[in-house]
C-alpha cells in the first residue's frame, strides 16, 4: 500500500514561505507529477514527505498513519535524487544491494531481489560495472534500482531526467511509463518540464511559489486550466495570452485587444458574473489558430508572417496582427515566407477568457 495525504502542509524558511498550505492526495499505485518552475516548492515538499524536513504546519499521512514525527528510515519512502549519488567504489550490484544489506537480508534474498530489479530495468548485463563505466541513462537506471529494491511504499523522483540530453530524455520518458506499470509502486516525480509531467503522470500537481494551483489529469490541465499560470505553463508552444478590455457596443460584447477585437457575446453572462473588472485576458492555443491565404467568413484578422520554424512534425509560425505577436501551429504542408500576408481565425470552441486581476479562468 502506498497512499499519501498531505493536509495543509506549510514550510517556511525565515520569512519566505516555501510551501503554502498544500493539500494533496495520492492514491495507492498512482503516478503523480509535481510540476513547477525552480522555487515552486517541489523539492521541499519531497523532503517533508521523506521526513528529512519537518513541516511548520499541517499533517502528512502515509497509508492513513500520521507520520510527522516518524524519522525517514521508518517511513518506507525511497527518494531518488537528480545527481543519482551512486557509490563510486561499489559495483552496480553492490550499489543496488546496499539498502538491503543495511536491512540485514540474507545474501540469497539480496541476490534474488537485485537480479529481479536489474532485469526489470534492463541492466542485468551491467551488474559488475563501476559507476564511472556507465552512461548517463545507465546510471539513472541503477539509481532507480537502488530506490525500488527496497519495495518502498512510495518512490519520490526528484527531476530524474534533467541531466539527460534531449533524445535520451524522450526515450526515458516512455521507459519510465512502461516501468511504472510493472512496478505498481506509488510514484511522485518532480519536474520543471511540462512535457514530462503531462506525458507521464496520471495526475499532475502544478505548483508555483509554494502554492498548489491545480491538481488534475493532464487532459484536464491542458484543456481546462483553472487559472492563468496553469494555462500559460502547460503546453508548448505556450498558449497565446492577450490582454484585452471588455467592451459593450451595439448590444454585442467584445474583447478589445487594441490590434484586434473578438466577439464574446455568447459568454456575456459568465463574464458578467465572474469578472472583477473589465481587464481580461484572451487565451488561445497555437494549434487552435488557423491561417489561410484568403479571407474567411466571420472574425478573420489580417496578419503578417513574422517567422516560420519548421520544427517538424509541427510547423511553428509567429504571426503579427498589428503590433501584436501570436504563435500558431500549422500543418506539415504549410509553406510561407517571412513577410507574407495571411488571414487568421481562432477556433471558437477553444478560446479561454481569464480575469486579469484574480488570474482565474472565466471561460
Amino acid at each position, binding site marked *: 500500500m502506498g497512499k499519501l495525504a498531505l493536509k495543509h502542509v506549510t514550510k517556511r524558511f525565515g520569512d519566505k514561505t516555501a510551501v503554502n498550505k498544500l493539500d494533496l492526495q495520492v492514491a495507492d499505485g498512482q503516478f503523480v507529477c509535481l510540476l513547477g518552475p525552480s522555487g515552486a516548492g517541489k523539492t521541499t515538499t519531497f523532503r517533508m514527505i521523506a521526513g528529512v524536513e519537518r513541516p511548520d504546519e499541517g499533517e502528512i499521512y502515509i497509508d492513513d498513519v500520521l507520520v510527522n514525527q516518524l524519522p525517514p528510515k521508518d517511513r518506507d519512502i525511497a527518494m531518488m535524487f537528480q545527481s543519482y549519488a551512486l557509490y563510486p567504489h561499489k559495483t552496480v550490484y553492490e550499489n543496488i544491494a546496499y539498502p538491503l544489506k543495511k536491512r540485514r537480508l540474507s545474501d540469497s534474498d539480496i541476490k534474488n531481489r537485485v537480479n529481479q530489479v536489474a532485469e526489470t530495468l534492463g541492466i542485468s548485463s551491467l551488474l559488475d560495472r563501476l559507476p564511472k563505466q556507465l552512461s548517463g541513462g545507465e546510471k539513472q537506471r541503477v539509481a532507480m534500482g537502488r530506490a525500488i529494491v527496497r519495495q518502498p511504499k512510495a518512490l519520490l523522483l526528484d527531476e530524474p531526467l534533467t541531466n539527460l540530453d534531449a533524445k535520451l530524455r524522450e526515450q526515458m520518458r516512455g521507459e519510465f*511509463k512502461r516501468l511504472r506499470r510493472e512496478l505498481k509502486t506509488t510514484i511522485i516525480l518532480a519536474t520543471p518540464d511540462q512535457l514530462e509531467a*503531462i506525458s507521464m503522470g496520471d495526475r499532475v500537481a502544478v505548483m508555483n511559489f509554494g502554492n498548489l494551483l491545480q491538481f488534475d489529469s493532464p487532459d484536464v490541465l491542458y484543456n481546462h486550466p483553472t487559472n492563468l499560470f496553469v494555462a500559460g505553463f502547460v503546453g508548448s508552444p505556450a498558449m497565446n495570452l492577450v490582454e484585452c478590455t471588455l467592451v459593450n457596443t451595439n448590444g454585442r460584447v467584445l474583447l478589445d485587444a487594441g490590434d484586434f477585437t473578438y466577439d464574446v457575446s455568447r459568454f456575456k453572462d459568465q463574464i458578467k458574473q465572474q469578472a472583477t473588472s473589465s481587464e481580461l485576458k484572451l487565451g488561445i492555443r497555437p494549434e487552435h489558430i488557423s491561417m489561410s491565404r484568403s479571407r474567411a467568413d466571420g472574425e478573420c484578422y489580417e496578419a503578417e508572417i513574422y517567422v516560420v520554424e519548421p520544427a517538424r*512534425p509541427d510547423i511553428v509560425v509567429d504571426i503579427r496582427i498589428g503590433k501584436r505577436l501570436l504563435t500558431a501551429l500549422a500543418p506539415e504542408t504549410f509553406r510561407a515566407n517571412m513577410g507574407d500576408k495571411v488571414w487568421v481565425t481562432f477556433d471558437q470552441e477553444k478560446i479561454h477568457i481569464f480575469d486579469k486581476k484574480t488570474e482565474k479562468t472565466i471561460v
Partner: protein
Amino acid sequence: MAVVRLENLTKRFGNVVAVNNLSLEIKDGEFVSFLGPSGCGKTTTLRMIAGVERPTEGEICIDDVVVNDLPSKDRDIAMVFQFYVMYPAMKVFDQIAFPLKMRGASKDEIKKSVREVATILGIDHLLNFPVGGLTMGERQRIELARAMVRRPKVYLLDEPLTNLDAKLRARMRGELKRLIKTLGTTTIYVTHDQLEAISMADRIAVMTLGSLQQYDTPENMYDHPTNLFVAGFIGTPAINFVDCSFVEKDGRAFLDAGEFVYDITEFRENVAKDSTSPELILGIRPEHISVNKRRAGENSIEAQVNVVEPTGNRTIVRMSVGKHPMVANTGVLAISPDEKVWVNFDRTKIHIFDKKTERTII
C-alpha cells in the same frame, strides 16, 4: 559579399581524424547549421573557419580569398559563444562597445554603431544598465550585439542556446532566426540539437565522426534523407526502422518483416535496381503512422499498445508489432496501454534503405 568555401578540409589530432575531407560552400547571406552528435567535428570545423585551429589539409576561403594563414582578427568574422561571459557591473553600452574600443575606433563612431545595433536588437533601452540582473534573452542579444557591432562578413555561433531551459529555448529560436534573417549576414550555427537546426537554418550540414553525411535544406533533410544516419538523427521522436527482406512473388513486391508483410509493388523497379542485397530497412516517421481501433484496409498491421504519452496537442503511442517496437505520433487519441490496434503507414512517406550500404533507395 561573404561566401565561405571549405575545400577538402581535414583536421587530425594524432590518429584521430576529427574532420575528414569536408567540402562545402555557404552562399552569401545564407544561414547554415553544422549539426551532429558530440565528436562529429562540427566545432572543430567552426574553429578552423574562425582561425583558432589550423587545418591539417585543405583550404578555407572567404570571398575567394584563402584565409588559412590569416589570423582570426584579420578574417572579418565574429564568434558568438554559448557562455555569456560578461562583467556583471559593466554597463550594456560598454559591453557592446568593447570590440570597437579594442580596434581604436573614435568615441563618435562607437556611440553611433552601438546605438544602431542596440536598436536593431531591441535592447537600446538597456544601454545604461549593468549587465548583471538582465534576463538570459537580453544577455543573448547583448552577446549578438557585441558580434554585430564589428560588422563582420560572417557570424559564427557555437551552440548559443544550449544553456537555456526548454521553454526559453523554444521562444529564443524564433527570435534568433528572425534577427539573423533580418541582418542578412552569412551565418554558421553549430548545434547538436536537430530541432534547432531544422527550425532555423536555410541549409544544414549533418556530420558524424568527422564526415559530412548530407548538406541540404531542412525540408529535404527531413523528407528525403540520403542515408540511414541522417534519417535517424533528424526528427523526434526518431523515425521507425524495421529490418526486412525484399521479396518478389506473383508479379508483386513486398517487404517481409517477419511479423508483417508490406506491399511495395509500386517501388519494385527502383528497389530491385538500387539494392545491393535483399536485406533492406523500412523507415516510417511516427507522425506518418495512423493508429486505428479497427482494421483499416489491406495494408493495416496489427499492433499492441505499450505506452501512451499525451503531449498536449498530440499523442505519442509506443507499440509492438510482434517483436518490432514502433512509435506513432498522432493527434489527440483516446487509447490505453495493452489495447490492440491497427496501424497504417502513409504510403507517400515511407523510406526504404539498403541495410548494407545504409543508403536510401526510396
